[in-house]
């Protein structure tokens, strides 16, 4: 498993190439790239930052869970930090598996879960200003308050 947080361009082709093994019938790749707009507002660049050590541990945990949960053979999960311009890859997910259903399911679960649980944030620089991108709410397992907590604090 190749799980990394990097500060330079992600070598997507090399990572995909090294993932393939004889037992694989399917490789599913998700390549997240910097779009030229967000809801129609023109993007100049994005700045990604992370709680780096924690993010890497979370990513390792997700990769291991994907292998167990979906029965895939191998996973690569690489996220880039720093300033990225339009067209550059911010995150690469690669899943290699004997069968395609598991490869798709694991790949999608990995990117969906990464986006709500791995401590990485991005600031979008538009032509007319900059904002921190809204994140989706944390899953219950990561939240400070369970229902019980809230009542205790009440």
């Amino acid at each position, binding site marked *: 498993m190749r799980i990394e947080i990097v500060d330079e361009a992600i070598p997507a082709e090399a990572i995909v190439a090294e993932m393939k093994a004889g037992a694989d019938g399917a490789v599913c790749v998700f390549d997240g790239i910097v779009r030229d707009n967000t809801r129609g507002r023109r993007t100049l660049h994005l700045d990604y930052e992370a709680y780096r050590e*924690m993010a890497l541990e979370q990513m390792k945990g997700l990769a291991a869970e994907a292998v167990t949960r979906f029965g895939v053979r191998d996973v690569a999960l690489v996220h880039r930090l720093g300033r990225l311009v339009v067209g550059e890859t911010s995150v690469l997910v690669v899943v290699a598996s004997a069968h395609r259903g598991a490869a798709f399911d694991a790949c999608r679960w990995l990117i969906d879960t990464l986006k709500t649980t791995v401590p990485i*944030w991005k600031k979008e620089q538009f032509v007319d200003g900059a904002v921190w991108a809204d*994140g989706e709410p*944390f899953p219950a397992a990561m939240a*400070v308050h369970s229902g019980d907590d809230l009542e*205790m604090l009440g």
Partner: protein
Amino acid sequence: MLGYSGLMRVRVLYFGVLRDLAGHREVEVELAEGLSVAEFLAFQRASFQRASVAEASQLWDSIAVAVNKEYARGDVVLRDGDEVALLPPVSGGRGL
């Protein structure tokens, strides 16, 4: 807070919009021993509001807290030397 026996030092980390609001990424603070994550978060929220840098309460309701690089529930009790991070909803990846 009455009745606590002493003080402890914890390192507090701010990320994303909270780092911009705080004006720094990291600070060391002294806190009463026995403080829970939920109590700590309430104090942080109040201090941001005192400094008039509060964002919508929606942000504070959605923050997660990591203690020593792991997500922590509100009832976790902080200890001397802990690293406590305030995490706004994350937005890594791409292609929402």
